[in-house]
């Protein structure tokens, strides 16, 4: 309980800092939202009155304060482009990003677990080298390149999958999955590459541990030792890393989402930055940061399940 309170406090502090950073960043962006909204045809009077209306003429501190007050009451403000409540926009985007993230994770794990185990237990063999190469390839291909390559191969040349777009799961289940496969692979391969590398090295380390020898001394065969004793221990650092990687993958999705026309949070942030839709940028970034922190919080809880040595008392190691 104390632990949870402490974590919530910490989370609040981090979110506060995130909000300060994003707010100041957004406000030093060159470019005036009013100009962007009204475009080339705007008259100076119109611009002025729009700025007034949007509260852009107030001192930054006051703008920030008003925004934070709103956020604390659950009101993230309204898009300055079409006045949609930011919350509504986020609610539209979250299922999309969630679906993409889950599918990517699934793909990543389906690749990383077998490949990681094989390369760790067959260290120094051709298997190991190939999977190292595979893993490195995954991190070395720029996401936009991989994405376009996938569309080109699977949608255009082979025609196996639809090229891009999004349909909610509730509307057309299979088509929704089909549309998500390519973007999920684009993100998943990269994630799987990191996971494979982590899993390999942490398995290698665990396989050196004394208790592994104990397992063999009991009469277990390799399979029993790897799955019964090594895997769970090896998973612990892997999970930390995936937790930390979350931020990268929520954001790495930015480009993937753009290419595959997946209307997720990442794309939302980029377009909102480019169109100076400040409330949306702020809301979306806060959401992402919140998600990242929340995931890491859950990772911590998962730890205690995986590793009974770790208590939720908040030890640092």
């Amino acid at each position, binding site marked *: 309980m*104390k632990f949870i309170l*402490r974590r919530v406090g910490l989370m609040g502090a981090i979110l506060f800092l995130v909000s300060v950073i994003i707010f100041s960043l957004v406000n030093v962006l060159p470019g005036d939202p009013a100009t962007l909204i009204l475009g080339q045809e705007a008259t100076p009077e119109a611009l002025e009155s729009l700025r007034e209306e949007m509260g852009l003429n107030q001192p930054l501190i006051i703008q920030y304060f008003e925004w934070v007050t709103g956020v604390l009451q659950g009101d993230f403000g309204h898009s300055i482009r079409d006045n949609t409540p930011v919350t509504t926009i986020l609610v539209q985007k979250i299922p999309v990003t969630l679906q993409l993230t889950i599918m990517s994770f699934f793909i990543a794990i389906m690749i990383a677990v077998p490949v990681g185990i094989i390369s760790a237990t067959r260290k120094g063999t051709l298997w190991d080298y190939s999977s190292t190469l595979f893993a490195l390839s995954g991190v070395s291909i720029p996401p936009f390149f991989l994405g376009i390559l996938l569309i080109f191969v699977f949608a255009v040349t082979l025609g196996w999958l639809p090229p891009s777009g999004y349909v909610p799961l509730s509307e057309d289940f299979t088509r929704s999955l089909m549309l998500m496969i390519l973007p999920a692979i684009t993100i998943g391969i990269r994630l799987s590459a990191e996971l494979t590398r982590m899993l390999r090295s942490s398995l290698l380390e665990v396989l050196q541990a004394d208790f592994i020898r104990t397992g063999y001394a009991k009469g277990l065969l390799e399979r029993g030792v790897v799955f019964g004793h090594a895997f769970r221990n090896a998973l612990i650092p892997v999970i930390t890393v995936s937790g930390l990687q979350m931020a990268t993958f929520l954001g790495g999705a930015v480009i993937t989402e753009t290419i595959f026309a997946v209307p997720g949070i990442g794309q939302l942030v980029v377009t909102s930055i480019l169109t100076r839709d400040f409330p949306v940028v702020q809301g979306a970034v806060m959401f992402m940061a919140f998600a990242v922190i929340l995931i890491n919080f859950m990772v911590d809880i998962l730890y205690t399940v995986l590793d009974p040595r770790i208590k939720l*008392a908040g030890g640092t190691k």
Partner: protein
Amino acid sequence: MKNIEKLQQPDNLLEVQSIKKYFPLENNSLFKKNSRFVKAVDGVSFVVKKGETLGIVGESGCGKSTMGRTILQLQTPTEGEVLFEGEDISKFNRKRLREIRKDIQIIFQDPFGSLNQRMTVGAMLSEIIHVHKIVPKNEVLKYVQKLLEDVGLNKEHYWRYPHEFSGGQRQRISIARALAVKPKLIICDEAVSALDVSVQAQVLNLLKKLKYKYNLTYIFISHDLSVVKHISDRVGVMYLGKVVELANKKAMYQDPKHPYTQALFSSIPDVTSVNKKERIILKGDVPSPLNIPKGCRFHTRCPAAENICREKEPDFRKIANEHYVSCHLV
């Protein structure tokens, strides 16, 4: 607690007066003060005379190393005073501490971890000599090489890195580092525990030799009773953060008074006794320093414990000349 010997005796090099070191239990709460502590050292007093070797024995986790570090002010004591040559060094500021550290040195157990792997032996030793301006610049090389020879290494080793040495040789480097500043007191924290017996003997002989040569005083911490006996003049036995018995070597080894000391001595598997001796096997484990038992801290394992032991903490009493013990039953 009473001071056990009169203060300011001229031949007292170090006086430790009821020092305590409590570690707050890891608790990152922003506002609340800690209420739980690891009582690593819980009121220890003794004196070390010039030129003697005081041995400290005790089981793992009883606070030996913490005590050593606290004396050196590597950890600030929670309570108590450390008088070195009559001055309370626990009140010193950083600068004076740096200066006083010239006089007190420490040798650690781990011959691998206690040397900086990325510095040559020579660079490491010269650095210290520069800092304390032990000898003029142009003599440093000669001085260091002489030092290396003193500890049984040779001149060429000046340019080598720690990983090129064996365990025993590394421990000699640590000794050289301690000696480099011409200290008066050296604390040896398990300085030979990591070594093989045959190497251990070499290092022990060296320590003894150097002691006479440089007129050193040692505090020799170890869990190996035979080693402590070999090297010490007086011996203190620690249990759970306290010294429970302190006497000169002879008295201690021939006639231990405290039940814990007795059990400890009887547990040592001995090479020399051909007939297997009668052992006192203690029950259970050492309690955690987080929950030190009330009353006598040994009563939970003591074969002779009585009611009073469970209630009242015994004083550290003098029972004979230079023999102190903390037990109700003696």
